[in-house]
């Protein structure tokens, strides 16, 4: 290889690398810009909201949009509602999914594989099919417009059972043998051996579950009707309905308040979320 050729290759390599980084940087910008704009706009006034070029540096002392927001809707109540609903569902799913997953992964009983298959195939059922009859049921048993109508039907999850079972199968059986010889019950093995070893999988399920129901729109829109029962996503859509173009700053203030807790949690929980997602992507 001549010196010239070597230089040419080196140059090609570096320019390729620079192009690559530029491309990735561009993608990062596209991903982040909407959030930055949201944040900056929420601290602006109505006149500057649509300023072009946009004002990227927010004037953090201007919190008028936030004050207006809190006057127009009970935002923190919605936040509490969302939090309450999502956490109760998460706790419920952790219990029902982990016990079922333990049985499907470890215990032998008649019909086990068939029941597991049946449960898994229910993941194909779109919630739109079940939501119409559930809506009628909730009205019948007077749970319509209560948070219970949102929580009860999703205290179980086929996805959660699947995720935890996949993880339980990776725990070596030998760990339980000693306990079994000592005459430990299945519940003891489940609660004293399996659960303590499943921290990553349980937290992954907890985070995915919480996020899903914190962000959910479809069911709350159908099952809730009084303003005081709303969750954040429903509250946000109401805000837009009411003030369509009127107040972009107030709208962005609301979105900022809705998004920030999630982002904060995320920064701490990133590892578990990624683990959870890759766990579900495992084959078999």
């Amino acid at each position, binding site marked *: 290889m001549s010196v010239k050729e070597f230089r040419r290759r080196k140059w090609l390599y570096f320019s390729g690398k620079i192009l690559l980084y530029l491309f990735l940087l561009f*993608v990062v910008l596209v991903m982040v810009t909407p959030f930055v704009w*949201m944040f900056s706009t929420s601290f602006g006034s109505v006149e500057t909201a649509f300023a072009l070029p*946009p004002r990227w540096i927010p004037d953090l002392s201007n919190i008028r949009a936030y004050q207006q927001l809190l006057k127009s809707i009970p935002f923190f109540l919605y936040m509490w509602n969302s939090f309450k609903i999502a956490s109760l569902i998460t706790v419920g799913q952790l219990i029902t999914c982990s016990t079922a997953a333990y049985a499907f992964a470890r215990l032998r009983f008649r019909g086990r594989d068939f029941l597991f298959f049946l449960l898994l195939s229910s993941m194909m059922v779109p919630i739109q099919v079940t939501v119409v009859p559930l809506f009628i049921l909730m009205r019948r048993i007077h749970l319509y417009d209560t948070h219970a109508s949102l929580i009860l039907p999703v205290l179980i999850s086929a996805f959660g059972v699947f995720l935890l079972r996949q993880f339980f199968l990776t725990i070596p059986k030998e760990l339980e043998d000693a306990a079994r010889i000592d005459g430990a019950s299945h519940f003891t093995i*489940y609660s004293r051996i399996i659960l303590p070893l499943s921290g990553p999988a349980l937290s992954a399920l907890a985070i995915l579950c919480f996020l899903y129901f914190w962000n959910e729109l479809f069911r709350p829109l159908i099952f809730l009707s009084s303003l005081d029962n709303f969750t954040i996503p429903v509250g946000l859509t109401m805000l837009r309905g009411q003030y369509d173009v009127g107040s972009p700053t107030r709208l962005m203030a609301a979105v900022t308040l809705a998004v920030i807790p999630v982002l904060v949690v995320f920064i701490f929980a990133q590892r578990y979320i990624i683990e959870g997602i890759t766990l579900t992507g495992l084959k078999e």
Partner: protein
Amino acid sequence: MDVKTKKSEIGRREALAGYLFILPTMLGFLLFIIGPVIAAIILSFYYWDLFTSPKFVGLDNYKALLHSVRLFTIYKNTLIFVLGVVTLNMGGGLLIALIVNRKLHAIFRYLLRTTYFFPMITSVVAVALVWNLLLNTDLGIVNYYLGKVGIPRINWLLSSKGAKVSIILVEVWKNIGFYMIVFLAGLQNIPRQFYEAAEIDGASGLRRFFYITFPMLSPTFFFLMIVGLINAFQMFDMPYVLTKGGPGDATRTTVMYIYETGFRFFDLGYAATVSISLFVLIIVLTLLQFRISKRWVFYR
């Protein structure tokens, strides 16, 4: 007690424990999934508006479904979204995963991973509200910056084509991180020796991709396609917030239609019928994919 009866006693106790452990899940499954599915099928033979008593109408709902021009348009929209979203997510997600899988600076890798995650974990409602303003034809920053590089103003949200494209792009923007993460996990599971061997044999980059990366990644591909398709068919939040289904019916999806029919106009029987048509479509397509998968998905 001899050994045999003791053994069967242990087996019985194990089975009993098994049933008890799955009891809550199976009970919920019966009450909130199987029951409602059967109820939805029954409901599809009735006209019911909640306020009068249900009226048996035979196959009328299904006839209406098959002859509805509007529903045909709506299903067409849904299919366009499914195709657009799944293709772009898979293609884009794989491309970015391939790039990130190379030797990148650790800080850069963290930055990338974190930023792709932001949209993924925020609610569709939140991001759709932001994009709704960003995509404003006259005042939005998207057209402003496109104008800077010489691209004329695009009517994003108020033209039929523009609105469809907007839905697809924002949906991809939101979910591409998920696809990237799963692809990345798949890529990192491929043993290095395969590539080393191929390199010694002098296989080009493209050949290595088609003969090693793709076959090894095919289960990941398959998984993402199944999940992506099922999710895309159920798209609701994005068009509901970003375009409200408009202009006209240009971005109305099947699920939006179910919502409006059932819970705005309280035609519950017809809403159930449409939801069943969606269910059948999803089942058929998923089973079809499993069928075809035997030809191209490669399990180690």
